[in-house]
């Protein structure tokens, strides 16, 4: 119980990160790799938010009177994650447009078959 309380979010975040890296390393389909990238992004965002959490804290909005600033969670990681989500969607859009062009050129998305350039 205590273990769950203190580690469940960390387990979720790093679980996503490791599963994403595993997808990137083992799968050779480009779209599958991009899915892996988006899963890594989600994991990193979760980790960042965990860094600012405060037990029994409230959201950092003075929406009603009587909220004390000491009890609010840290807004900085939330601002960073907003940035990171938008960066993630930009990279995804870029990657998917590249994937579409790659498919038009080669007729496949399998990175093992696309090896024109030698090291």
């Amino acid at each position, binding site marked *: *119980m205590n273990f*769950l*309380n203190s580690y*469940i*979010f960390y*387990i*979720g975040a790093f*679980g*996503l990160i490791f*599963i*994403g890296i*595993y*997808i990137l390393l083992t*799968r050779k*389909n480009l*779209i*599958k790799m*991009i*899915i*892996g990238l*988006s*899963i890594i992004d*989600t994991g990193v*965002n*979760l980790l960042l*938010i*965990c860094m600012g*959490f*405060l037990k029994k*804290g*409230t*959201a*950092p*909005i003075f929406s009603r009177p009587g909220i004390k600033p000491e009890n609010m*969670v840290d807004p900085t990681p*939330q601002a960073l*994650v*907003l940035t990171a*989500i*938008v960066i*993630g*969607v930009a990279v*995804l*859009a870029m990657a*998917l*447009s590249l*994937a*579409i062009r790659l*498919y038009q050129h080669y007729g*496949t*998305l399998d990175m093992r078959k696309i090896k024109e350039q030698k090291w």
Partner: protein
Amino acid sequence: MIFIIAFLVVVMLAGAIAACLFRDLLNAVIASCLVSLIASILFYFLQAPDVAMAEASIGAALVTAIFIIAIRRTERRE
């Protein structure tokens, strides 16, 4: 409360593993959409409503749509 969260985390990780295992890319994309959706609920539990909103509208909805458009233009099987 903590058990709900633990259940959500387990479902989220299962979604990620499913995204890894599915051979059909469309199913994999739906699984990764599930991951984003549960992540947005977790953000809400972590007292981050702004981020939850952004993750739900951008991460779960738009990214999935972009993926599906791209899959329609390419191939569906891995």
